[in-house]
């Protein structure tokens, strides 16, 4: 089980933030828009920064120097590894679920 599941109600937004940062650093607005595009549901600022704080505290993401009064975040190696574990877990769950649905 990856460390992301320890984040409780912030675990799903945390995974989405890590996915958003997987192709390069982004600031809060860009993460919010990207997650909105991927899931069709834009996370609220409280949820977004609640998840960002937890990911930063665990060393999964790191803040970069500000640019235009906006603070970008980047994925760390630990964050990349945690995201990989989490996505594989989700794929395993999805595969099993879809296979069972096909059988029934």
């Amino acid at each position, binding site marked *: 089980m990856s460390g992301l599941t320890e984040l409780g109600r912030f675990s799903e937004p945390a995974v989405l933030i890590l996915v958003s940062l997987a192709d390069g650093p982004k600031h809060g607005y860009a993460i919010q828009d990207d997650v909105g595009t991927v899931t069709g549901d834009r996370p*609220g600022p*409280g949820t977004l*920064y609640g998840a960002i704080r937890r990911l930063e505290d665990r060393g999964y993401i790191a803040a970069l120097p500000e640019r235009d009064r906006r603070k970008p975040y980047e994925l760390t190696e630990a964050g990349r590894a945690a995201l990989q574990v989490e996505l594989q877990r989700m794929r395993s769950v999805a595969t099993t679920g879809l296979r069972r649905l096909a059988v029934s």
Partner: protein
Amino acid sequence: MGGRREKAIRLVLRLYPATVRDRYGRELAGMLRHSPVPTRDLLDAARCAVIERVGHLHRPDVRVAFLSTLALLAAPLAFGATLLTLASAAVLTLDAAGAGAADERWARSAAASAVIPVAVLAVWLGRRAGRAVGTSRRYGRENDRETYRQDDRVNDHGKEPDRDHGRRDPAATAAAATVIAVPAAFGLGTAGLIGTPLLGEMLGENPSAALVAVALWAVATAAVGGLVGSLRRRGHRHGARLAVAVGAFLIMEFCCAAYVLLGVPAEAAPRAGALWWYPAAATGIDPGLVSGLSGELSEAVKGLPAVLTVCTLFALSLASTVPRPSRAATPTFPVASA
């Protein structure tokens, strides 16, 4: 942009713990300011602020502070119970030895002597607590330095670090807590005992006079504690010890006098003997300071001087033991509030 939205944003941000607000407040405010769905986003931020606030209460340092406050509030009860037990044991021992039961004066002195071991215990506990405060203070400084290292990593490259000028120095906060919070908590705990039926009767015949005396005690102990702490921080260890001994006596003289002045009429307790009220109450050696009868003073003041003596020694020992801040370890930047 509506002023109402700005007010709502400020209100929501205030719900967050200071540490979270300091780190993300500006970004959160910006996002809320430009939100296409402001109501939904404000509610989301408010809900998450409450979650952060609840999580903050579960932080080990906050939990320790909460439990310490509870312990301080309960301390007068614990001290009082120990004093009562030891005083009863002393009187029973005297009685068993066949010497004291007939002589009330001996019994009163034996009961008063119970304060000695409890006072020694209070000094030991106070010194121990003072060292613990010093340790947590150093720990707090290290945490704050780490926080700022992170902030600097985030904000360097020509950008001013995002620091709030209103932040307090945790060393100063801990010192203030030592000096003010301990007497305040002891005062509240003692006042609670005074207001409790049966228990209150053991702490003086006149509850309102006892409450005023306890309030004055808290203020006086905080003032003397501040002086002791200041001497200690300047390296005057012997001066601090002397201030503890003299200060404790003066505080108790003052509070005992306040209680008798307020609670016992002048015709019963001639004011000329005011300076002897505390020594007589503390030792049980009463030449007849109230109504001309030996033992009447003890009946009037009951256990209050003993409980406050022990509380005073704890509070002042703690103030005299908190290590002075090391200049080398003091950060050169403003530090975050805990």
